[in-house]
C-alpha cells in the first residue's frame, strides 16, 4: 500500500472535499470514496517518483524535530527554498517525511 502521506496536499485535499460533497449528495458511497483515495495514493506516489525531476535546496533554522513511528516531523524557521529558477522564503515551515527506503510499497504500475 502506498503512503497516504500526500492526502494532505492541495491536490489531495481538493479530492477529499470533492468526494465528501458527492457522499453528502449520496451520489457515491463512502466505501467508493475510500477506494478512490487509495487509488489517488498510488497515482501520486507513482507520479512523484517517475514524472518529477527537479532538485530543491533549503536552509533555515530548526525549531523542533520529532521522530515517531518512522515519521520525521520538523518545524523550521526563516527558511529559504532554492531552486534553479527561483527562491522562496518563508518564516515557518513544517516538514513531514515518511521513510523513503523502498519497502516494496511503491510498486510501479
Amino acid at each position, binding site marked *: 500500500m502506498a503512503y497516504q*502521506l500526500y492526502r494532505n496536499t492541495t491536490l489531495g485535499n*481538493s479530492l477529499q472535499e470533492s468526494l465528501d460533497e458527492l457522499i453528502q449528495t449520496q451520489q457515491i458511497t463512502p466505501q467508493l470514496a475510500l477506494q*478512490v483515495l487509495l487509488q489517488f495514493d498510488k*497515482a501520486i506516489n507513482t*507520479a*512523484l517518483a517517475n514524472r518529477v525531476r527537479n532538485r530543491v535546496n*533549503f536552509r533555515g533554522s530548526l525549531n523542533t524535530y520529532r521522530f515517531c513511528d518512522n515519521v520525521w516531523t520538523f518545524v523550521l524557521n526563516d527558511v529559504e527554498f532554492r531552486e534553479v529558477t527561483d527562491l522562496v522564503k518563508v518564516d*515557518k515551515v513544517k516538514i*513531514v517525511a515518511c521513510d523513503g527506503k523502498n519497502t516494496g510499497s511503491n510498486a510501479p504500475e
Partner: protein
Amino acid sequence: MASSANSNPVPKLYRSVIDDVINEVRELFLDEGVDEQVLMELRTLWENKLMQSKAVEGFHTEEQQALQAQQQQAQQVQQSQQQAQHPVILPPQQQAPQQQVIVQDQKIIQAVNATGMRFQPRGPQSMCDSPFVFVHQPATERSAAATAATLALPTGVGPYQQLITSQGQILQVVRAANGAQYIIQPQQQMVLQQQVLPQMQQGGVQAPVIQQVLAPLQGGIPQQTGVIIQPQQIVLAGNKVQQNAQVMQTATMQTATMQTATMQTQPGQVAAQLQVQAQPQPQQPQQQQAAQQQPVQQQPPMMLQVDGAGDTSSEEDEEEEDEYDEDEDEDKDKDGGEDGQVEEEPLNSGDDVSDEEDQELFDTENVVVCQYDKIHRSKNKWKFTLKDGIMNLNGRDYVFSKAIGDAEW
C-alpha cells in the same frame, strides 16, 4: 506554450495525476453501479477546487480565468444580496455564540454602507423577544431610560441614524467626523444608561428599569456584543449634554477602558463582563470598568469595586476570591496594581511565550510532505536529504524529486 510547461511542472503533474485517478476509478464506479456522470462530476469538482485554491499556477489558464471571472461576479452578486438580507435574517439566532458577533457586525456595517439605511422600523408588535426597545414603547418605564439614553448619546454628533432590525433592536449608526461609520451596540448603551440615569433622574425608578432591560438583553442580542466601542468615545466626546458632565467623564473613562479591554480581549468576554457586572451590582454603575485601570480601584467604599468581591472573571469563584484578594490587597498596592490590570487580560499574560498562537492564525501553513532518504545530525547541525515531495509555500504549490537542506537547531 512549451516553455510554460517546462518552467512549472506542477500543473502538468497534477493534470496527469487527475487523469490517472479518474481513469483507474472508472472501473470501480461502474462496478458499484455509479453513473459515469458522477465520475465526471467528481473530476469537475476536483479541478474547480484546485483552481480556486490558486495554489497552482496556470492550471487551466484560459478556462481558469473565465471561470474565475464568472465565479467572482456570481459571488459579488450573492454577497450584495446576502448583505441586504442579513440584518433581517440574523436576529433570529438569539442563542448564537457571541463569537459570531464580529462577522455579523461587519455584515451589518457593509449592509448599512451598501444599502444606505434601508431598514424599515417596525412597530412594537413585530418585536419578537427583543426587550431592547428604545423609542417604541412610550408608556412604560423603559421610555424614561430610552429617552435618557437617547439624550445622552447622540447629541452633538453628526449624522445620526437609527437602524431598527427585525427584532426591533435599535442600532444607532453614527457617522463620526473621520467619515467612518460606527454602530453603537445596545449593550453598551445599556451600560451608559446605568451611568446616566442615576445621576440624571430619579434613581429609584431607574435602577430596576436597568435591571429589567439588561436581563433579557443578555440572551437577546446575538450579534451585538461589545464589538464597536469607539463610537461611544466619539459620541461622548462630542456630547454636549451639560447635565451629564460627570457622566461624560465616567463614560469616557469607561469607553476608554472598554476600548482597551475590547482590543485586548475577545468580544465574548467583554459582553460577559458587561452582563455579569449588570447582574450583581447594578446600583453602583458609575465606574464599573474605569476602576479597572484607574487607581480609583483602590477606593472601595464609594466606587464599584471590580476586583475582589466584584470580580467578574467568574461568578462562582467570587466567594473564594473574596478571602484570597483581601490578603493580596496589600501586595497589590505594593506591586503597583500589576495584578489589578484589566480583568479580561489573563494574569501575567505577557510572560507567556505564545509563538504558536500567532502563527496558527496565518492563512497558509507552509507544509512540505515528502519522504526522507537520510537525516543526519552533528551536534546541533542537521542535514536533510529528502525526496518526492510536494510543498505548499506562501500559498503556492511546488514539487521536487530531491531536496537537500541544512538547519541549525
